[in-house]
């Protein structure tokens, strides 16, 4: 029973699972350094979909190298990067090369956070139209529901994605902006 406080804020009172805890833990550090948005499968899971996932997709606007190094140092207190321990390589060879890097709790590779710089128009739209989800005193930012549905149906299209989209459509039946959804569907079909 998700509750909209306004068009861009949702309040939930859910019992946190391991994925929720990982996301809230990670973003509590990330938010000190950067804007971010969570996209794809975890958005459906946050709102109740009955499945797990091994990774959570997270987008950030491209950040300066020194900011990334500070973020990495802070994250390393609790998390480890699964790709490399070399900050320079993570920034230059991966992130600036349009490749995601993954973070997990130390010595626990799954589940993990797939961290990537925004690159495409859809990525920037996700950041621009993000919504805030409040769970108790904590909060996190996820992609707009309409964009998630359209992207999963029009671009990804696997059985799992269609089911994720169907879940969101049913849960948010009374709150969806149908015009916005149609517009995203039109843009993504191109």
């Amino acid at each position: 029973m998700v509750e909209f406080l306004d068009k861009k804020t949702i309040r939930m009172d859910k019992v946190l699972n391991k994925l929720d805890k990982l996301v809230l833990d990670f973003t509590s550090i990330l938010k000190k350094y950067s804007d971010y948005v969570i996209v794809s499968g975890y958005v459906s899971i946050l709102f109740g979909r009955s499945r797990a996932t091994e990774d959570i997709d997270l987008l950030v606007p491209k950040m300066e190298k020194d900011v990334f190094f500070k973020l990495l140092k802070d994250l390393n207190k609790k998390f480890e990067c699964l790709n490399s321990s070399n900050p320079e390589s993570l920034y230059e060879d991966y992130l600036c090369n349009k490749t995601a890097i993954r973070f997990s709790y130390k010595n626990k590779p799954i589940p993990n956070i797939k961290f990537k710089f925004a690159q495409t128009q859809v990525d920037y739209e996700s950041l621009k139209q993000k919504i805030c989800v409040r769970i108790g005193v904590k909060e996190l930012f996820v992609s707009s529901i309409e964009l998630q549905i359209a992207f999963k149906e029009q671009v990804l299209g696997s059985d799992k994605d269609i089911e994720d989209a169907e879940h969101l459509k049913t849960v948010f039946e009374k709150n969806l902006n149908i015009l916005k959804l149609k517009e995203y569907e039109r843009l993504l079909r191109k």
Partner: protein
Amino acid sequence: MSEWFDNEKNRQERLRFVRFWAKYVREHPDKEWSKQQKDLIDSQF
């Protein structure tokens, strides 16, 4: 349709359950559905 497995029927049945569960989520208190979701997700890690 394969002689061994009807993929389309399976897909439709799965979608029916997805809608059933999503409606449950929509109509029940967060604590109620999320406890069940937590049991399912946490058991996999």
